[in-house]
């Protein structure tokens, strides 16, 4: 149920520290809270990946400081195989759930969706607050797994049953795995509340003149993503509940009969189906990939248009493509299970929609690149990261060609090729979207400009570094290098070790380069030059209010919208652009109406 007194913009300006910054109902504060949480999670996740990479090239090396993190997992600072897997699980879980889902969608979405549609706040501010705090609690529960019994779970972020159900299956599978499941369940609830809020806000709270087709592409992306998330997390939640029940209540949803672990017969479970978990998980898991990447696509389009100084060749094609991707994402989960004992016929059934996703993805990419032709590119840190995103998206997308075909997946399935693929298209690409968004919107969020020079250095290091890390992953996969190995003992893996050394050094370099970004962010927050209302000469509504915006976004006057979102590259009084809320007439409409 909703609360009238707290209804859109009708909560009074918050008083007191807690109401203002902690338990705030203001979508802008909540957006920043999500962003901060994501930043914290991405730092932890990155350090974990460092530790993993170092262990891979020097399995018996003493890593300074590690013994303080876990005396059992790393006695004397030497990482054990199980601790490698435990860190890997935490890396995956933190990155997928608490970074890729929170920052581009919940972080930027919370802050800018209401502003871009001219609303004063989200539809249900209380749900919005609950959504963040649920996510935060989930985060704390997950981190707690580091400090219990024998540490976090080692079953990977996919937590395949029965490994994830049986406490005797290995270190971390007792308390750690339970905490993991509880954490994800709580996270699901948070995201469900968030999606509910986003969808309702977009449908009901658009200001006068803001027709759906006049919404910026970023808003469209957040809207579509929320629709995906609403259904995806509504499936992961039951899966987690079943997992928790299997673990703590002794039910048998996922554990079959007659299992024998370390010579001991598992007698308290019987008849369960491990594939059931895989189906439920991947029915969520594949849409999750698009939950991570679609907001980045929207943000990047929004930024590219601004730095192209022209609208995209077609606004609608991009929107319809995003919708198509969202729709298709629900028909392809089986491609994660080509070798898990599904019938070979269903493998074929899942293969074609997977390949079909290429078409809308290609459409978006072609529109991006085609619109760059004949454009006037303004090179900023934001636009560089956006262009870097395009490059990454293409690269990562193309390796999907291989994995979408069962016949090739049979060779590549469990290898580093998969790791390279999803890090490129989901990890790095989405994180590039986050960087682009940060450089673009930091002036609005904090009222200060970030340093462009540092931003460009940061971009170059990150871009080259990311390719140096993740391109070799594909090669290793082609050579059959199996993923999730804590050490490479097989004879055929020995020749590949130099490549792993290279990757590790690239990872250390790229990670270190992120300190530039952190420094830039913190410095600009306090010492950056103050930003005016519209530093990038943008057209959408977030540029029509002060930086940072007042607590009700537009100072009580709801803006009225007269134009499509991206009126660039025209002659107008304000320059080469007209803002959405300016009543000025436009002679030349750039958007190509020849289609649709």
């Amino acid at each position, binding site marked *: 149920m909703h609360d009238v007194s707290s209804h859109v913009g009708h909560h009074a300006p918050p008083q007191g520290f807690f109401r203002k910054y902690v338990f705030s109902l203001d979508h802008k504060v909540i957006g920043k809270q999500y962003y901060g949480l994501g930043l914290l999670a991405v730092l932890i996740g990155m350090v974990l990946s460092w530790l993993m990479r170092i262990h891979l090239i020097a399995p018996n090396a003493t890593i300074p400081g590690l013994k303080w993190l876990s005396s059992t997992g790393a006695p004397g600072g030497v990482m054990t*195989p199980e601790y490698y*897997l435990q860190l890997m699980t935490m890396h995956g879980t933190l990155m997928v759930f608490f970074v890729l889902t929170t920052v581009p969608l919940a972080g930027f979405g919370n802050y800018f969706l209401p502003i871009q549609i001219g609303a004063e706040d989200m539809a249900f501010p209380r749900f919005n607050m609950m959504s963040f705090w649920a996510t935060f609690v989930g985060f704390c529960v997950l981190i707690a797994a580091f400090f219990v019994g024998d540490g976090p779970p*080692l*079953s990977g972020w996919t937590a*395949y049953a*029965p*490994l994830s159900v049986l406490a005797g*299956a*290995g*270190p971390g599978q007792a308390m750690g795995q339970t905490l993991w499941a509880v954490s994800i369940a709580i996270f699901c609830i948070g995201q469900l509340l968030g999606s509910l809020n986003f969808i309702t806000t977009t449908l009901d709270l658009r200001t006068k003149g803001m027709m759906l087709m006049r919404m910026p592409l970023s808003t469209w992306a957040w809207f579509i993503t929320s629709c995906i998330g609403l259904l995806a997390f509504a499936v992961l939640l039951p899966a987690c509940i079943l997992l928790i029940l299997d673990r703590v209540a002794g039910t048998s949803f996922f*554990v*079959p009969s007659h*299992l*024998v672990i370390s*010579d001991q*017969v598992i007698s308290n479970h019987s008849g369960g189906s*491990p594939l059931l978990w895989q189906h439920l998980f991947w029915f969520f898991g594949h849409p999750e990939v698009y939950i991570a990447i679609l907001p980045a696509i929207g943000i990047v389009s929004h930024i590219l248009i601004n730095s*192209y*100084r022209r609208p995209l*060749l*077609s606004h609608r094609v991009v929107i319809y493509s995003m919708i198509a991707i969202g729709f298709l994402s629900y028909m392809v989960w089986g491609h994660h299970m080509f*070798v*898990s*004992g599904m019938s*070979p016929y269903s493998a*074929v059934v899942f*293969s074609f929609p997977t*390949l079909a996703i*290429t078409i809308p993805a290609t459409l978006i*990419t*072609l529109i991006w690149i*085609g619109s760059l*032709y004949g454009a006037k*590119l303004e*090179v900023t840190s934001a636009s560089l990261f956006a262009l870097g995103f395009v490059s990454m998206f*293409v690269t990562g997308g*193309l*390796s999907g*060609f*291989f994995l979408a*075909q069962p*016949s*090739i997946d*049979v*060779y590549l*399935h*469990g290898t580093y090729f998969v790791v390279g693929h999803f890090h490129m298209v989901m990890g790095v690409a989405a994180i590039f979207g986050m960087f682009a968004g940060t450089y673009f919107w930091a002036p609005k969020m904090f009222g200060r400009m970030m340093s462009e020079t540092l931003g*460009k250095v940061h971009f170059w290091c990150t*871009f*080259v570094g990311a390719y140096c890390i993740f391109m070799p992953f594909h090669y290793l996969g*082609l*050579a*059959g290098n*199996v993923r*999730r*190995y804590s050490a490479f*003992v*097989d004879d055929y893996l020995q020749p590949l070790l130099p490549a792993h050394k290279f990757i590790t050094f690239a990872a250390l370099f790229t990670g270190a380069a992120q300190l530039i970004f952190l420094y830039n962010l913190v410095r600009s927050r306090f010492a950056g030059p103050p930003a005016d209302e519209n530093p990038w000469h943008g057209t959408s509504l977030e540029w029509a209010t002060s930086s940072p915006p007042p607590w009700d976004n537009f100072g009580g006057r709801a803006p009225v919208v007269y134009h499509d979102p991206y009126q660039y590259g025209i002659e107008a009084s304000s320059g080469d652009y007209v803002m959405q809320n300016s009543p000025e007439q436009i002679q030349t409409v*750039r958007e190509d109406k*020849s289609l649709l």
Partner: protein
Amino acid sequence: MAKFVAVTLIAIAIGSAIPILLHIWMPPADISTHGHLIDAQMADTMVEAGICFIAAQLILAVFIWLAASRPSGYKIRNFPGGSFVLVLAAFFLVGTEVLALGFFGTKAWANIYFTPPSADSLPVQVQAGQFAFYFRYPGPDGKFGPIHPEMINEANQNLFGIDVDHDQDAKDDIVTAEMGVPANKEVHLLMHSKDVGHSFYVRELRIQQDFVPGLDLSLHFTATKTGRYEIVCTQLCGLGHYNMKAYLNVMSPTDYDSWIKQQAALQ
């Protein structure tokens, strides 16, 4: 800066292509009768994806170079044909491309997985457990004795929990830690997991299949080239995952016969 980025992009595109073109890291030589289908499919896909990759990155680089060096007062121009051309391209070029890939890929897949094993194939049972593979041959009677989970005792090397004293079929079963198969004879692999999920992966055979606990799957292949190859686990199964492996020993029929006799003697 933009020109610098464009050059970087070109360098990355070419640099990424070199290891592929030089075949530095590639699948090992195929030793199976079906593998060539997969290799051909992989080669086609590599060509198509490679062309798209190089083309996209280079065009992007060139456009960045051009778009960043416009004179002031430059008039925006549209891509010839506008989005219409691009949509057509996406649908017809890319659409047919992926459709073709899917179609031929499915043919390769069907050739391997839609055919049942032949009647005279050699049955071998493989059991995956934390963290080792063990293999069982039915022996002269061609029958596997039933598995009694409660009798599994690795300390006594009763790895399958077979009851030699009471089960007639189990008496002549042969359990080995290494998988010996005769060359050019079809092997019918009966897969059984003892505890959690595992996977059976032999690069040279172009084979990968998960073990699903409680679900006994099967697989059939014919190895053509004698030699020792590594069988590794590709499904995360616990702390010893990285060291879960066994050796596949493809032998000439005569060697195989003496090998299996030798193993039978060791039971």
